Protein backbone atom coordinates (compact mmCIF):
# COMPACT_ATOMS: atom_id res chain seq x y z
CA UNK A 1 0.00 0.00 0.00
CA UNK A 2 2.86 2.35 0.86
CA UNK A 3 6.45 2.01 -0.20
CA UNK A 4 9.13 4.48 0.84
CA UNK A 5 12.74 4.17 -0.15
CA UNK A 6 15.48 6.58 0.89
CA UNK A 7 12.87 9.20 1.69
CA UNK A 8 14.36 12.57 2.61
CA UNK A 9 12.78 15.81 3.79
CA UNK A 10 14.80 18.98 4.14
CA UNK A 11 13.71 22.38 5.37
CA UNK A 12 16.44 24.63 4.02
CA UNK A 13 19.66 23.24 5.45
CA UNK A 14 17.91 21.27 8.13
CA UNK A 15 17.20 17.62 7.42
CA UNK A 16 14.04 16.49 9.20
CA UNK A 17 13.85 13.04 7.59
CA UNK A 18 17.15 11.41 6.70
CA UNK A 19 16.52 8.79 4.06
CA UNK A 20 14.05 6.38 5.62
CA UNK A 21 12.67 3.23 3.98
CA UNK A 22 9.62 1.26 5.00
CA UNK A 23 6.66 -0.58 3.60
CA UNK A 24 3.03 -0.66 4.70
CA UNK A 25 0.92 -3.65 3.68
CA UNK A 26 -2.68 -3.46 2.65
CA UNK A 27 -5.09 -3.72 5.58
CA UNK A 28 -2.56 -3.34 8.36
CA UNK A 29 -2.20 -0.65 10.97
CA UNK A 30 1.27 0.75 10.80
CA UNK A 31 2.74 2.96 13.51
CA UNK A 32 5.50 5.49 13.76
CA UNK A 33 6.62 5.84 17.31
CA UNK A 34 8.98 8.61 18.21
CA UNK A 35 9.56 11.62 20.44
CA UNK A 36 9.00 15.27 19.53
CA UNK A 37 10.93 16.30 16.46
CA UNK A 38 11.52 12.72 15.30
CA UNK A 39 10.19 13.56 11.84
CA UNK A 40 6.82 11.82 12.11
CA UNK A 41 4.73 14.75 10.92
CA UNK A 42 7.21 15.52 8.14
CA UNK A 43 6.94 11.95 6.89
CA UNK A 44 3.16 11.80 7.14
CA UNK A 45 2.79 15.14 5.36
CA UNK A 46 4.86 13.84 2.46
CA UNK A 47 2.69 10.73 2.39
CA UNK A 48 -0.42 12.93 2.31
CA UNK A 49 0.85 14.84 -0.69
CA UNK A 50 0.97 18.02 1.40
CA UNK A 51 4.68 18.51 1.50
CA UNK A 52 7.05 18.09 -1.45
CA UNK A 53 9.41 15.13 -1.21
CA UNK A 54 13.01 16.38 -1.15
CA UNK A 55 14.39 13.12 -2.50
CA UNK A 56 13.80 9.41 -2.48
CA UNK A 57 10.91 7.29 -3.65
CA UNK A 58 7.41 7.25 -2.28
CA UNK A 59 4.56 5.23 -3.73
CA UNK A 60 1.05 5.24 -2.30
CA UNK A 61 -1.40 2.66 -3.63
CA UNK A 62 0.48 2.52 -6.91
CA UNK A 63 0.69 6.28 -7.31
CA UNK A 64 4.04 8.05 -7.40
CA UNK A 65 3.74 10.55 -4.57
CA UNK A 66 6.73 12.56 -5.68
CA UNK A 67 5.12 13.38 -9.02
CA UNK A 68 1.41 13.27 -8.35
CA UNK A 69 0.54 14.53 -4.87
CA UNK A 70 -3.08 15.31 -5.71
CA UNK A 71 -3.98 11.82 -6.96
CA UNK A 72 -2.88 10.51 -3.58
CA UNK A 73 -5.33 12.75 -1.82
CA UNK A 74 -8.14 11.22 -3.88
CA UNK A 75 -7.66 7.88 -2.14
CA UNK A 76 -6.50 8.73 1.37
CA UNK A 77 -8.03 10.32 4.46
CA UNK A 78 -5.90 12.63 6.58
CA UNK A 79 -6.13 13.42 10.28
CA UNK A 80 -3.55 16.09 10.92
CA UNK A 81 -1.96 16.95 14.24
CA UNK A 82 -4.03 20.13 14.43
CA UNK A 83 -7.70 19.39 13.97
CA UNK A 84 -8.29 22.14 11.42
CA UNK A 85 -12.02 22.04 12.08
CA UNK A 86 -14.19 24.79 10.68
CA UNK A 87 -15.68 26.96 13.45
CA UNK A 88 -17.92 28.88 11.05
CA UNK A 89 -20.13 25.89 10.27
CA UNK A 90 -21.87 23.20 12.32
CA UNK A 91 -20.46 19.82 13.21
CA UNK A 92 -22.52 18.11 10.50
CA UNK A 93 -21.62 20.75 7.91
CA UNK A 94 -17.95 20.20 8.67
CA UNK A 95 -18.46 16.71 7.30
CA UNK A 96 -20.76 17.62 4.43
CA UNK A 97 -18.47 20.37 3.24
CA UNK A 98 -15.54 17.98 3.40
CA UNK A 99 -17.47 15.78 1.00
CA UNK A 100 -17.80 18.80 -1.32
CA UNK A 101 -14.01 19.16 -1.39
CA UNK A 102 -13.94 15.63 -2.76
CA UNK A 103 -16.49 16.54 -5.37
CA UNK A 104 -19.38 14.62 -3.81
CA UNK A 105 -22.83 15.86 -4.71
CA UNK A 106 -25.07 17.31 -2.04
CA UNK A 107 -27.11 14.19 -1.31
CA UNK A 108 -24.16 11.85 -1.17
CA UNK A 109 -22.21 14.26 1.02
CA UNK A 110 -25.12 14.57 3.46
CA UNK A 111 -25.66 10.83 3.59
CA UNK A 112 -22.00 10.14 4.24
CA UNK A 113 -21.90 12.88 6.89
CA UNK A 114 -24.75 11.22 8.76
CA UNK A 115 -23.15 7.81 8.47
CA UNK A 116 -19.86 8.86 10.01
CA UNK A 117 -21.58 11.00 12.66
CA UNK A 118 -23.42 7.90 13.67
CA UNK A 119 -20.36 5.72 13.68
CA UNK A 120 -18.30 8.13 15.75
CA UNK A 121 -21.12 8.70 18.26
CA UNK A 122 -21.58 12.34 17.42
CA UNK A 123 -25.10 12.14 16.09
CA UNK A 124 -26.63 14.24 18.85
CA UNK A 125 -24.04 16.99 18.31
CA UNK A 126 -24.58 17.42 14.57
CA UNK A 127 -26.15 20.85 14.87
CA UNK A 128 -23.65 22.22 17.38
CA UNK A 129 -20.75 24.49 16.70
CA UNK A 130 -17.38 22.73 16.79
CA UNK A 131 -16.28 25.20 19.45
CA UNK A 132 -18.74 23.62 21.86
CA UNK A 133 -17.24 20.14 21.56
CA UNK A 134 -14.87 18.64 24.12
CA UNK A 135 -11.30 17.84 23.08
CA UNK A 136 -12.14 14.17 22.64
CA UNK A 137 -15.18 14.94 20.49
CA UNK A 138 -13.20 17.34 18.33
CA UNK A 139 -10.65 14.64 17.72
CA UNK A 140 -13.34 12.11 16.88
CA UNK A 141 -14.91 14.60 14.50
CA UNK A 142 -11.56 15.11 12.80
CA UNK A 143 -11.18 11.37 12.40
CA UNK A 144 -14.79 11.08 11.20
CA UNK A 145 -14.08 13.74 8.59
CA UNK A 146 -11.25 11.68 7.14
CA UNK A 147 -13.74 8.86 6.50
CA UNK A 148 -16.31 10.89 4.58
CA UNK A 149 -14.52 10.10 1.32
CA UNK A 150 -14.30 6.36 2.10
CA UNK A 151 -10.53 6.28 1.82
CA UNK A 152 -8.46 3.17 1.25
CA UNK A 153 -5.68 4.52 3.44
CA UNK A 154 -6.03 6.75 6.49
CA UNK A 155 -3.14 8.75 7.84
CA UNK A 156 -3.43 9.83 11.47
CA UNK A 157 -0.92 12.17 13.08
CA UNK A 158 -0.99 11.65 16.83
CA UNK A 159 -4.68 10.83 17.06
CA UNK A 160 -4.89 10.96 20.84
CA UNK A 161 -2.24 13.44 21.94
CA UNK A 162 -3.65 15.78 24.55
CA UNK A 163 -6.72 13.68 25.33
CA UNK A 164 -7.65 12.44 28.78
CA UNK A 165 -7.47 8.66 29.30
CA UNK A 166 -11.23 8.20 28.89
CA UNK A 167 -11.39 9.97 25.53
CA UNK A 168 -8.26 8.20 24.44
CA UNK A 169 -9.87 4.84 25.08
CA UNK A 170 -12.90 5.80 22.99
CA UNK A 171 -10.72 6.80 20.08
CA UNK A 172 -8.81 3.53 20.38
CA UNK A 173 -12.01 1.51 20.40
CA UNK A 174 -13.23 3.20 17.25
CA UNK A 175 -9.91 2.87 15.49
CA UNK A 176 -9.92 -0.81 16.35
CA UNK A 177 -13.33 -1.24 14.73
CA UNK A 178 -12.19 0.60 11.61
CA UNK A 179 -9.10 -1.50 11.45
CA UNK A 180 -11.24 -4.62 11.40
CA UNK A 181 -13.24 -3.17 8.52
CA UNK A 182 -10.15 -3.55 6.34
CA UNK A 183 -8.91 -0.01 5.91
CA UNK A 184 -5.14 0.52 5.95
CA UNK A 185 -4.00 2.86 8.71
CA UNK A 186 -0.71 4.70 9.15
CA UNK A 187 -0.44 6.56 12.41
CA UNK A 188 2.15 8.40 14.43
CA UNK A 189 2.24 8.50 18.17
CA UNK A 190 4.53 9.11 21.05
CA UNK A 191 2.58 6.85 23.35
CA UNK A 192 4.07 3.38 23.46
CA UNK A 193 0.83 2.04 24.87
CA UNK A 194 -1.09 3.29 21.86
CA UNK A 195 1.42 1.76 19.47
CA UNK A 196 1.32 -1.55 21.33
CA UNK A 197 -2.47 -1.74 21.33
CA UNK A 198 -3.28 -0.58 17.81
CA UNK A 199 -0.33 -1.29 15.56
CA UNK A 200 0.32 -4.51 13.69
CA UNK A 201 3.77 -3.28 12.83
CA UNK A 202 5.68 -0.17 13.65
CA UNK A 203 8.89 1.72 13.20
CA UNK A 204 10.67 3.56 15.94
CA UNK A 205 11.92 6.94 14.80
CA UNK A 206 14.30 9.44 16.26
CA UNK A 207 15.99 12.45 14.72
CA UNK A 208 14.79 11.67 11.22
CA UNK A 209 15.91 8.04 11.22
CA UNK A 210 14.27 4.69 11.69
CA UNK A 211 15.98 2.88 14.54
CA UNK A 212 13.96 -0.30 14.59
CA UNK A 213 11.06 -1.97 12.79
CA UNK A 214 8.77 -4.92 13.40
CA UNK A 215 5.70 -6.01 15.32
CA UNK A 216 5.50 -4.64 18.86
CA UNK A 217 6.30 -8.08 20.29
CA UNK A 218 9.25 -8.65 17.97
CA UNK A 219 10.72 -5.28 18.84
CA UNK A 220 10.34 -5.86 22.54
CA UNK A 221 11.77 -9.37 22.36
CA UNK A 222 14.70 -8.38 20.19
CA UNK A 223 15.65 -5.13 21.75
CA UNK A 224 14.53 -5.27 25.37
CA UNK A 225 14.01 -8.96 26.15
CA UNK A 226 10.93 -10.34 27.84
CA UNK A 227 11.69 -8.73 31.15
CA UNK A 228 13.85 -5.82 32.19
CA UNK A 229 15.39 -5.24 35.57
CA UNK A 230 14.95 -1.93 37.28
CA UNK A 231 17.77 -1.06 39.57
CA UNK A 232 17.25 1.66 42.16
CA UNK A 233 20.53 2.62 43.86
CA UNK A 234 20.39 3.29 47.60
CA UNK A 235 21.39 6.64 49.02
CA UNK A 236 24.91 7.56 47.86
CA UNK A 237 25.41 4.30 45.96
CA UNK A 238 24.81 5.51 42.42
CA UNK A 239 28.41 5.44 41.24
CA UNK A 240 29.13 2.09 42.80
CA UNK A 241 25.99 0.56 41.31
CA UNK A 242 26.82 1.99 37.93
CA UNK A 243 30.28 0.41 38.06
CA UNK A 244 28.87 -2.96 39.11
CA UNK A 245 26.36 -2.86 36.27
CA UNK A 246 29.07 -2.03 33.78
CA UNK A 247 31.09 -4.96 35.00
CA UNK A 248 28.08 -7.28 34.74
CA UNK A 249 28.20 -6.83 30.97
CA UNK A 250 24.48 -6.29 30.50
CA UNK A 251 23.09 -3.48 28.40
CA UNK A 252 22.06 -0.67 30.70
CA UNK A 253 20.38 2.69 30.37
CA UNK A 254 20.00 5.30 33.08
CA UNK A 255 16.86 7.31 33.35
CA UNK A 256 16.22 9.64 36.23
CA UNK A 257 17.53 7.82 39.28
CA UNK A 258 16.84 4.35 37.89
CA UNK A 259 18.89 2.00 35.76
CA UNK A 260 17.02 -0.21 33.34
CA UNK A 261 18.90 -3.41 32.56
CA UNK A 262 18.21 -5.66 29.65
CA UNK A 263 18.71 -9.41 29.89
CA UNK A 264 20.49 -11.65 27.40
CA UNK A 265 18.79 -13.93 24.88
CA UNK A 266 15.36 -13.19 26.28
CA UNK A 267 16.31 -14.20 29.83
CA UNK A 268 16.16 -11.72 32.67
CA UNK A 269 19.47 -10.24 33.72
CA UNK A 270 21.11 -11.99 36.65
CA UNK A 271 21.94 -9.20 39.06
CA UNK A 272 22.20 -11.22 42.25
CA UNK A 273 25.74 -9.98 42.81
CA UNK A 274 24.87 -6.30 42.60
CA UNK A 275 24.78 -4.66 46.02
CA UNK A 276 23.63 -1.31 47.30
CA UNK A 277 20.45 -1.23 45.18
CA UNK A 278 16.88 -2.41 45.13
CA UNK A 279 16.19 -4.60 42.12
CA UNK A 280 12.84 -5.46 40.62
CA UNK A 281 11.73 -7.04 37.35
CA UNK A 282 8.84 -6.17 35.06
CA UNK A 283 7.64 -7.03 31.55
CA UNK A 284 9.51 -5.03 28.94
CA UNK A 285 7.60 -2.53 26.79
CA UNK A 286 8.23 -0.30 23.79
CA UNK A 287 9.46 2.46 26.03
CA UNK A 288 12.33 0.20 27.07
CA UNK A 289 13.00 -0.49 23.42
CA UNK A 290 13.31 3.20 22.77
CA UNK A 291 15.46 3.65 25.83
CA UNK A 292 17.76 0.87 24.72
CA UNK A 293 18.00 2.28 21.22
CA UNK A 294 18.68 5.89 22.16
CA UNK A 295 19.52 6.03 25.85
CA UNK A 296 16.72 8.54 26.19
CA UNK A 297 13.13 8.53 27.33
CA UNK A 298 10.43 8.53 24.68
CA UNK A 299 8.72 11.38 26.46
CA UNK A 300 11.81 13.57 26.61
CA UNK A 301 11.10 16.99 25.25
Amino acid at each position, binding site marked *: MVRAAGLVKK*FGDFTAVEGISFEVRRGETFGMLGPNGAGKTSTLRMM*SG*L*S*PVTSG*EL*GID*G*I*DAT*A*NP*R*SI*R*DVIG*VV*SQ*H*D*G*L*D*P*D*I*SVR*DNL*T*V*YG*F*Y*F*GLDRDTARRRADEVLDFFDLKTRGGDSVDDLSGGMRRRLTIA*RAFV*SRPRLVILDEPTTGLDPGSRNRVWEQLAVLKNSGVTVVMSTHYMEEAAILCDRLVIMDEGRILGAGTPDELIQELAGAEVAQVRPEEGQRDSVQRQLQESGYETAELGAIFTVRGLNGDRADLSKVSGARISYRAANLEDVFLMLTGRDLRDE
Partner: protein
Amino acid sequence: MNESLAKRRDTGRIDFRVRGVAGVWLRHYTAFKAGWLIEMTGILLEPIFILAAVAFGIGKLVGDVEIRDNGVEYAVFVAPGIVVGNAMWHSLFECSWGAFRRLQTNRIYDSILAAPVSMRELALGEISWGATRALMTTAAVLAFATITGLVESPWGIGILGIGLLTGFMFGGFGLIAAAIAPSTHMLTLVFTMVGTPLFFFSGTFFPISTLPNWAQPIAWALPLTHPVRIARALATGDLYLGLLWSMLYLIVAAFVFYPIATRLLRRRLLV
Protein backbone atom coordinates in the same frame (compact mmCIF):
# COMPACT_ATOMS: atom_id res chain seq x y z
CA MET B 1 9.18 2.46 -10.41
CA ASN B 2 6.87 -0.13 -11.89
CA GLU B 3 4.85 0.42 -15.01
CA SER B 4 1.49 1.33 -13.53
CA LEU B 5 3.28 3.89 -11.41
CA ALA B 6 4.96 5.43 -14.39
CA LYS B 7 1.67 5.57 -16.26
CA ARG B 8 0.02 7.60 -13.54
CA ARG B 9 2.74 10.21 -13.47
CA ASP B 10 1.68 13.72 -14.32
CA THR B 11 1.63 13.96 -18.07
CA GLY B 12 2.22 17.69 -18.06
CA ARG B 13 -1.34 18.66 -18.87
CA ILE B 14 -2.80 21.30 -16.59
CA ASP B 15 -4.37 19.64 -13.63
CA PHE B 16 -7.33 21.83 -12.73
CA ARG B 17 -10.68 20.67 -11.40
CA VAL B 18 -13.67 22.94 -11.35
CA ARG B 19 -15.17 20.83 -8.57
CA GLY B 20 -12.23 21.77 -6.34
CA VAL B 21 -13.13 25.44 -6.77
CA ALA B 22 -16.82 24.66 -6.34
CA GLY B 23 -16.13 22.78 -3.10
CA VAL B 24 -14.43 25.80 -1.59
CA TRP B 25 -17.14 28.13 -2.82
CA LEU B 26 -19.81 25.85 -1.32
CA ARG B 27 -18.02 25.89 2.03
CA HIS B 28 -18.38 29.67 2.07
CA TYR B 29 -21.94 29.50 0.93
CA THR B 30 -22.71 27.04 3.75
CA ALA B 31 -21.11 29.34 6.33
CA PHE B 32 -22.92 32.33 4.85
CA LYS B 33 -26.28 30.60 4.96
CA ALA B 34 -25.78 29.75 8.61
CA GLY B 35 -25.51 33.41 9.53
CA TRP B 36 -27.13 35.06 6.57
CA LEU B 37 -29.42 37.40 8.47
CA ILE B 38 -26.55 39.12 10.22
CA GLU B 39 -24.41 38.99 7.11
CA MET B 40 -27.12 40.46 4.95
CA THR B 41 -27.69 43.26 7.40
CA GLY B 42 -24.04 44.20 7.10
CA ILE B 43 -24.09 43.89 3.36
CA LEU B 44 -27.18 46.05 2.99
CA LEU B 45 -27.32 48.60 5.72
CA GLU B 46 -23.83 50.02 5.95
CA PRO B 47 -23.46 51.09 2.33
CA ILE B 48 -27.02 52.32 2.29
CA PHE B 49 -26.33 54.54 5.29
CA ILE B 50 -23.26 55.93 3.56
CA LEU B 51 -25.15 56.44 0.33
CA ALA B 52 -28.07 58.12 2.07
CA ALA B 53 -25.85 60.40 4.13
CA VAL B 54 -23.52 61.40 1.31
CA ALA B 55 -26.03 61.61 -1.49
CA PHE B 56 -28.89 63.27 0.30
CA GLY B 57 -27.07 65.01 3.12
CA ILE B 58 -23.75 66.26 1.83
CA GLY B 59 -25.11 66.31 -1.72
CA LYS B 60 -27.49 69.11 -0.81
CA LEU B 61 -24.56 71.31 0.17
CA VAL B 62 -22.34 70.51 -2.79
CA GLY B 63 -24.45 71.25 -5.82
CA ASP B 64 -23.74 69.86 -9.30
CA VAL B 65 -20.56 68.16 -10.41
CA GLU B 66 -19.09 68.37 -13.91
CA ILE B 67 -18.53 65.09 -15.72
CA ARG B 68 -17.45 65.39 -19.33
CA ASP B 69 -18.84 68.88 -19.60
CA ASN B 70 -22.21 67.87 -18.21
CA GLY B 71 -23.36 68.97 -14.81
CA VAL B 72 -24.92 66.19 -12.75
CA GLU B 73 -26.34 66.22 -9.26
CA TYR B 74 -23.79 65.25 -6.63
CA ALA B 75 -25.94 62.33 -5.50
CA VAL B 76 -25.97 60.92 -9.04
CA PHE B 77 -22.22 61.45 -9.28
CA VAL B 78 -21.36 59.73 -6.03
CA ALA B 79 -23.75 56.75 -6.10
CA PRO B 80 -21.79 54.52 -8.56
CA GLY B 81 -18.60 55.25 -6.63
CA ILE B 82 -20.15 54.09 -3.40
CA VAL B 83 -21.59 50.97 -5.05
CA VAL B 84 -18.23 49.93 -6.50
CA GLY B 85 -16.27 51.09 -3.46
CA ASN B 86 -18.36 48.75 -1.34
CA ALA B 87 -17.76 45.89 -3.70
CA MET B 88 -14.07 46.48 -3.07
CA TRP B 89 -14.45 46.54 0.72
CA HIS B 90 -16.42 43.32 0.83
CA SER B 91 -14.11 41.18 -1.25
CA LEU B 92 -11.01 42.77 0.26
CA PHE B 93 -12.28 41.98 3.74
CA GLU B 94 -13.35 38.44 2.90
CA CYS B 95 -10.11 37.52 1.16
CA SER B 96 -7.70 39.16 3.55
CA TRP B 97 -9.20 39.09 7.03
CA GLY B 98 -11.44 36.10 6.45
CA ALA B 99 -8.79 34.20 4.53
CA PHE B 100 -6.17 34.88 7.20
CA ARG B 101 -8.45 33.46 9.86
CA ARG B 102 -8.94 30.34 7.78
CA LEU B 103 -5.25 30.09 6.94
CA GLN B 104 -3.60 30.86 10.26
CA THR B 105 -6.06 30.99 13.14
CA ASN B 106 -8.18 27.97 12.32
CA ARG B 107 -5.90 26.12 9.90
CA ILE B 108 -8.78 25.31 7.62
CA TYR B 109 -6.59 25.58 4.54
CA ASP B 110 -4.56 22.64 5.85
CA SER B 111 -7.75 20.59 5.96
CA ILE B 112 -8.92 21.71 2.54
CA LEU B 113 -5.55 20.92 0.99
CA ALA B 114 -5.57 17.48 2.60
CA ALA B 115 -8.62 16.81 0.41
CA PRO B 116 -7.92 16.66 -3.33
CA VAL B 117 -8.10 20.43 -3.79
CA SER B 118 -5.07 22.10 -5.34
CA MET B 119 -3.74 25.46 -4.23
CA ARG B 120 -4.84 26.98 -7.51
CA GLU B 121 -8.39 25.79 -6.93
CA LEU B 122 -8.40 26.86 -3.29
CA ALA B 123 -7.23 30.36 -4.21
CA LEU B 124 -9.80 30.68 -6.97
CA GLY B 125 -12.52 29.41 -4.62
CA GLU B 126 -11.58 32.08 -2.08
CA ILE B 127 -11.45 34.85 -4.67
CA SER B 128 -14.73 33.75 -6.28
CA TRP B 129 -16.44 33.90 -2.94
CA GLY B 130 -14.99 37.37 -2.35
CA ALA B 131 -16.38 38.30 -5.78
CA THR B 132 -19.73 36.73 -4.90
CA ARG B 133 -19.97 38.91 -1.82
CA ALA B 134 -18.98 41.91 -3.89
CA LEU B 135 -21.76 41.03 -6.30
CA MET B 136 -24.28 40.74 -3.46
CA THR B 137 -23.44 44.15 -2.05
CA THR B 138 -23.37 45.65 -5.54
CA ALA B 139 -26.84 44.32 -6.25
CA ALA B 140 -28.22 45.54 -2.93
CA VAL B 141 -26.82 49.06 -3.07
CA LEU B 142 -27.50 49.37 -6.78
CA ALA B 143 -31.14 48.47 -6.16
CA PHE B 144 -31.35 51.11 -3.46
CA ALA B 145 -29.70 53.70 -5.70
CA THR B 146 -32.07 52.82 -8.53
CA ILE B 147 -35.17 53.08 -6.37
CA THR B 148 -34.05 56.48 -5.08
CA GLY B 149 -33.56 57.66 -8.65
CA LEU B 150 -29.78 57.89 -8.68
CA VAL B 151 -29.30 55.55 -11.64
CA GLU B 152 -30.46 57.38 -14.72
CA SER B 153 -29.81 54.85 -17.48
CA PRO B 154 -30.84 51.23 -18.08
CA TRP B 155 -27.15 50.62 -18.79
CA GLY B 156 -26.87 50.80 -15.02
CA ILE B 157 -27.60 47.09 -14.82
CA GLY B 158 -24.09 46.57 -16.20
CA ILE B 159 -22.72 47.82 -12.88
CA LEU B 160 -23.40 44.31 -11.56
CA GLY B 161 -20.67 43.01 -13.84
CA ILE B 162 -18.32 45.83 -12.82
CA GLY B 163 -18.95 45.01 -9.15
CA LEU B 164 -18.15 41.37 -9.82
CA LEU B 165 -14.88 42.17 -11.62
CA THR B 166 -13.96 44.61 -8.86
CA GLY B 167 -14.61 41.76 -6.43
CA PHE B 168 -12.23 39.48 -8.32
CA MET B 169 -9.54 42.13 -8.41
CA PHE B 170 -9.61 42.98 -4.71
CA GLY B 171 -10.23 39.38 -3.73
CA GLY B 172 -6.92 38.49 -5.38
CA PHE B 173 -5.23 41.47 -3.79
CA GLY B 174 -6.63 40.59 -0.36
CA LEU B 175 -5.51 37.00 -0.68
CA ILE B 176 -1.96 38.16 -1.41
CA ALA B 177 -2.06 40.21 1.78
CA ALA B 178 -3.35 37.20 3.75
CA ALA B 179 -0.65 34.97 2.28
CA ILE B 180 2.21 37.20 3.35
CA ALA B 181 0.81 38.69 6.57
CA PRO B 182 2.58 37.48 9.70
CA SER B 183 -0.32 38.63 11.89
CA THR B 184 -3.67 40.38 11.80
CA HIS B 185 -1.93 43.68 12.55
CA MET B 186 -0.57 43.80 9.04
CA LEU B 187 -4.03 43.19 7.63
CA THR B 188 -5.40 46.13 9.57
CA LEU B 189 -2.65 48.11 7.91
CA VAL B 190 -3.87 46.94 4.49
CA PHE B 191 -7.29 48.38 5.23
CA THR B 192 -5.96 51.72 6.42
CA MET B 193 -3.09 52.05 3.93
CA VAL B 194 -4.77 50.60 0.86
CA GLY B 195 -8.52 50.29 1.34
CA THR B 196 -9.23 53.70 2.79
CA PRO B 197 -7.19 55.82 0.35
CA LEU B 198 -8.56 53.88 -2.60
CA PHE B 199 -12.10 54.33 -1.37
CA PHE B 200 -11.68 58.10 -1.12
CA PHE B 201 -9.23 59.04 -3.89
CA SER B 202 -10.36 56.94 -6.85
CA GLY B 203 -12.74 59.52 -8.21
CA THR B 204 -15.35 58.10 -5.89
CA PHE B 205 -16.40 61.18 -3.94
CA PHE B 206 -15.00 63.92 -6.17
CA PRO B 207 -13.68 64.10 -9.75
CA ILE B 208 -9.97 63.37 -10.13
CA SER B 209 -9.61 66.75 -11.90
CA THR B 210 -10.11 68.51 -8.56
CA LEU B 211 -6.90 66.94 -7.24
CA PRO B 212 -3.63 68.90 -7.58
CA ASN B 213 -1.89 68.29 -10.91
CA TRP B 214 0.89 66.11 -9.49
CA ALA B 215 -1.63 63.79 -7.84
CA GLN B 216 -3.83 63.21 -10.84
CA PRO B 217 -1.67 60.63 -12.64
CA ILE B 218 -1.40 58.72 -9.39
CA ALA B 219 -5.16 58.71 -9.01
CA TRP B 220 -5.51 57.46 -12.58
CA ALA B 221 -3.23 54.56 -11.84
CA LEU B 222 -5.24 53.44 -8.83
CA PRO B 223 -7.13 50.21 -9.42
CA LEU B 224 -10.47 51.39 -8.09
CA THR B 225 -10.50 54.44 -10.37
CA HIS B 226 -11.36 52.41 -13.44
CA PRO B 227 -14.37 50.40 -12.25
CA VAL B 228 -15.74 53.59 -10.69
CA ARG B 229 -15.34 55.42 -13.98
CA ILE B 230 -17.10 52.67 -15.92
CA ALA B 231 -19.87 52.33 -13.34
CA ARG B 232 -20.50 56.06 -13.47
CA ALA B 233 -20.73 56.03 -17.25
CA LEU B 234 -23.19 53.13 -17.10
CA ALA B 235 -25.31 54.85 -14.44
CA THR B 236 -25.56 58.07 -16.43
CA GLY B 237 -25.75 56.37 -19.82
CA ASP B 238 -22.88 58.52 -21.11
CA LEU B 239 -20.74 55.85 -22.81
CA TYR B 240 -17.55 56.80 -24.69
CA LEU B 241 -14.56 55.14 -26.30
CA GLY B 242 -12.09 56.01 -23.54
CA LEU B 243 -13.91 53.59 -21.28
CA LEU B 244 -12.38 50.71 -23.22
CA TRP B 245 -9.03 51.49 -21.57
CA SER B 246 -10.61 51.36 -18.18
CA MET B 247 -12.29 48.10 -19.10
CA LEU B 248 -8.99 46.64 -20.25
CA TYR B 249 -7.32 47.77 -17.02
CA LEU B 250 -10.11 46.22 -14.95
CA ILE B 251 -10.09 42.88 -16.72
CA VAL B 252 -6.32 42.54 -16.56
CA ALA B 253 -6.21 43.62 -12.91
CA ALA B 254 -9.05 41.28 -12.03
CA PHE B 255 -6.95 38.27 -12.89
CA VAL B 256 -3.38 39.43 -12.36
CA PHE B 257 -3.39 39.01 -8.58
CA TYR B 258 -4.77 35.49 -8.63
CA PRO B 259 -1.67 33.61 -9.83
CA ILE B 260 0.52 35.68 -7.52
CA ALA B 261 -1.70 34.82 -4.57
CA THR B 262 -1.56 31.13 -5.52
CA ARG B 263 2.20 31.22 -5.64
CA LEU B 264 2.55 33.00 -2.30
CA LEU B 265 0.14 30.59 -0.63
CA ARG B 266 2.14 27.67 -1.97
CA ARG B 267 5.29 29.16 -0.55
CA ARG B 268 3.67 29.57 2.82
CA LEU B 269 1.78 26.30 3.10
CA LEU B 270 3.37 23.64 0.93
CA VAL B 271 6.66 23.27 2.76
